């Protein structure tokens, strides 16, 4: 990771992320199938993202690096991945409200789809599962 062009030479890398990489490297050394190790690594990255340890953009950057994207394309690939990911979570939030029969105004669409904060979208989706009206999505968030 410290070798990546946009990576802060290791000193700012969260310890949990380093532990995840160490674990994956150890698993490979123990000859655990690479596909299994890769799957666990990606799940671990997502868990760290959902817990706010690493931002979505960093997760996308690591995914790009580990999935063989050439160096010149890593930035664009990571940006596209993060954009698609946020879009899916915005859509999922509305989808869950729809399936639960919770009405919401059209004014929710724009801020949701333009939201660049994946952590916020994660909380919105979680709240959509139990919300009884649109306003419950933003309870506890500063406006």
């Amino acid at each position, binding site marked *: 990771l410290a070798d990546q062009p946009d990576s802060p030479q290791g000193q700012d890398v969260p310890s949990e992320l380093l532990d995840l990489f160490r674990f994956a490297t150890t698993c490979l050394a123990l000859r655990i199938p690479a596909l299994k190790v890769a799957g666990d690594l990606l799940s671990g990255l997502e868990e760290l993202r959902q817990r706010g340890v690493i931002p979505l953009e960093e997760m996308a950057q690591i995914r790009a690096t580990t999935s063989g994207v050439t160096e010149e394309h890593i930035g664009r690939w990571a940006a596209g991945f993060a954009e*698609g990911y946020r879009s899916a979570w915005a859509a*999922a939030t509305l989808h869950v409200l729809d399936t639960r029969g919770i009405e919401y105004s059209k004014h929710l669409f724009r801020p949701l789809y333009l939201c660049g904060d994946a952590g916020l979208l994660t909380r919105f989706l*979680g709240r959509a599962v139990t919300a009884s009206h649109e306003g419950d999505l933003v309870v506890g968030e500063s406006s």
Partner: protein
Amino acid sequence: MSFVSYFPGRGTVRETAYLEGEAKGEAKGVLRVLEVRGLAISDEVRSRITACTDLDRLNDWLDRAGTVESAEELFTETEV
């Protein structure tokens, strides 16, 4: 007759990554809904959802993730 789009950006690195991010994001969204509902998610279920890249199927799972009584139940009706 097939439809061919010449829209700028189609097939680019960014678009390809966007579609992959969309599928991965939706898969994780399905898992998130199951988790928030407190349902147990086995490694097998997690792998199966995470590996899916079919947006229609993921949409169907997302539809039902809010009402199924177990995570495994997601797969029963789509395998008819």
